[in-house]
């Protein structure tokens, strides 16, 4: 066919057409490729930073938890506080029950009641394990003898679990209630074991030697596991208490000025507009269609609007936070989070998957995603004096970097197509946010808060295109979980 013949010849000739480009083209291509590599490196670094932050937060939190239980001080206090807890052994035989074989473990905490509950519900094995661990770490544990003289830690700590009063040695029945009580923690071994005095390590006071009431010893694992221990919570009178030999103390950390780490996340609706109140908008496009063209059959240049309005869509965010107390009722929060805002519009059939180009018909929905990494800085103020369910007001700023987007631009010329061009967006954006939250409950003393959250992109979304002079907005619910340091 003649037509085919002409086209074939054209095609053949055109396939031979070669024009050497100038060197500048490759130089520009090279620079752009390297930039992309740099971007990749940047995101890798960003990711690693995030991992480090999470890992570091995790490490700090859990190492702190271990230290919290670690300090054990055995001292020779002469007074028993009201807070002291007496642990008595049921395995002591009846004859020896009359002896005041009391084990007083004084666990110094601010909340005595809660500590008592904890002690009461804890088996002695777990206590001993904790002590063993602590002693092994040899961080802050100290043992003191009855008179304040240190026990040889190296010699004793590895194999010893708890200080015990050898019941056989406590013979002086006359000193039933008023005598010196030398041990705060007394775990009596079964009768068979009682006969054997276990190694007494600390030198005793004269009074103790004279009364021969108590010597301290340390049980082995086997001894302890056989014991049935009854833990009683008895208050003892300050004045009537005798000598107290051993106190196990838990150190109370000063945590008010430390950073607490946690996670937050949320979801809601996002949209773009000129202001907060423009929820749905047919964005204008700064393009003047030529007179007489299809787009503008009239005689003057005219402004054209896209075929489809941009609509509200869903958005979400997730991140890690770090909180620090500023004052009694104010805290400062920062962190890093991944945020996805989106709007939707209608577009036609895709005709170029590589460049994401679509015809301008309006028969298919399309979700335009804006993916950001955000670094927020927030001040949180407690409203009112509620302690059970405190209410907070948050206000802050956030710096965002647009990491990716599939958002469509519209070309209202004769082609009337949608296409992607992320170069039109502002990569770095600045926004403000506010919200409220209420502490709903606690998970192991770590507060969980929930409340409304609002974000407004102060800087324009794009430099050019249909999103120029538009601002991103988000309204939703946010929840936050903080690992509180005790």
């Amino acid at each position: 066919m003649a037509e085919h013949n002409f086209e074939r010849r054209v095609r053949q000739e055109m396939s031979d057409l070669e024009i050497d480009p100038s060197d500048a083209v490759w130089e520009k291509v090279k620079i752009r490729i390297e930039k992309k590599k740099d971007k990749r490196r940047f995101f890798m670094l960003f990711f690693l930073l995030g991992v480090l932050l999470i890992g570091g937060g995790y490490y700090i939190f859990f190492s702190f938890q271990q230290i919290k239980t670690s300090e054990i001080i055995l001292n020779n206090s002469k007074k028993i506080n009201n807070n002291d807890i007496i642990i008595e052994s049921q395995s002591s035989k009846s004859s020896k029950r009359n002896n005041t074989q009391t084990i007083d473990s004084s666990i110094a905490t601010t909340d005595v009641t809660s500590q008592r509950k904890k002690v009461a519900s804890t088996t002695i094995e777990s206590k001993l394990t904790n002590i063993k661990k602590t002693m092994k770490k040899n961080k802050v544990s100290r043992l003191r003898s009855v008179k304040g003289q240190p026990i040889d830690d190296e010699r004793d700590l590895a194999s010893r679990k708890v200080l015990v009063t050898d019941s056989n040695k406590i013979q002086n029945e006359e000193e039933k209630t008023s005598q010196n009580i030398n041990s705060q923690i007394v775990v009596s071994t079964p009768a068979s074991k009682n006969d054997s005095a276990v190694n007494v390590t600390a030198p005793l006071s004269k009074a103790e030697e004279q009364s021969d009431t108590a010597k301290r010893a340390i049980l082995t694992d086997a001894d302890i596991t056989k014991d049935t221990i009854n833990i009683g919570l008895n208050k003892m009178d300050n004045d009537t208490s005798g000598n107290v030999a051993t106190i196990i103390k838990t150190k109370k950390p000063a945590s008010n000025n430390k950073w607490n780490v946690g996670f937050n996340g949320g979801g809601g609706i996002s949209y773009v507009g000129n202001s907060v109140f423009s929820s749905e908008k047919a964005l204008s496009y700064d393009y003047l269609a030529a007179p007489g063209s299809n787009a503008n059959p009239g005689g003057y240049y005219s402004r054209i609007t896209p075929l489809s309005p941009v609509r509200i869509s869903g958005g979400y965010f997730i991140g890690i936070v770090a909180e620090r107390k500023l004052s009694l009722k104010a805290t400062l929060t920062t962190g890093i989070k991944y945020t996805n805002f989106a709007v939707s519009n209608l577009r036609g059939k895709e005709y170029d998957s590589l460049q994401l180009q679509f015809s301008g018909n309006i028969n298919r929905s399309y979700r335009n995603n804006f993916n950001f990494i955000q670094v927020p800085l927030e001040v949180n103020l407690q409203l009112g004096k509620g302690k059970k369910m405190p209410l907070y007001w948050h206000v802050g700023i956030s710096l965002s970097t647009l990491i990716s987007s599939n958002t469509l631009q519209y070309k209202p010329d004769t082609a009337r197509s949608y296409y992607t061009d992320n170069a039109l967006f502002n990569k770095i954006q600045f926004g403000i946010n506010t919200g409220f939250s209420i502490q709903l409950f606690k998970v192991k003393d770590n507060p969980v808060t929930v409340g409304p959250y609002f974000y407004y992109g102060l800087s324009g979304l794009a430099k050019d295109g249909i999103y120029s002079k538009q601002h991103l907005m988000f309204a939703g619910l946010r929840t936050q979980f903080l690992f509180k340091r005790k």
Partner: protein
Amino acid sequence: MDYQKLVKDCLKHRPEAQRQLYEHYAAIMLGVCFRYTKSITDAEDVLQDGFIKVFKHLEQYRSQGELGAWIRRIMVRTALNYLKTNRKYQTDLVFDEMPLHPVSTDDPVVQLQAKELSELIIQLPTGYQTIFNLHAVEGYSHIEIAAMLGISDGTSRSQYARARALLIEWLKKLSSQAQHDHYGRT
């Protein structure tokens, strides 16, 4: 040339492989870009954007088809995008709905030289030029062209018919002028 290895090396971001790929295809792709634009400078802009996309999306090349054909498709798409977004071409890239113009069966016996032909093609109005290139040179059907440009396939046919007729007319003139010059000299 081992294209698969070249692609793999490019995917590993090896500069020498990227340079090799560019040098192998740059000249022929500039010829493609030139046909869609009006100047070498614009064609080089398209070539630059096209190669950036090539390297960016190289992992999407499945090694099933010819690498050159894949790159060529990217260049054509990039050129179309360039025409749509560049203000210089926007106003000229008009596809008026015209009554269907039957494609001439005229098959002129004219000498077609690549360079001259390409220079004639770029002198066509941008709309004609684009559709002529897409149909006659790239081999896209009018339905495909219609989807790519967001026009009806009838418009594409009509524009093509006019472009073809205009080009043949110019070729004939060129041919007769050449003959006249030839006889004049002799």
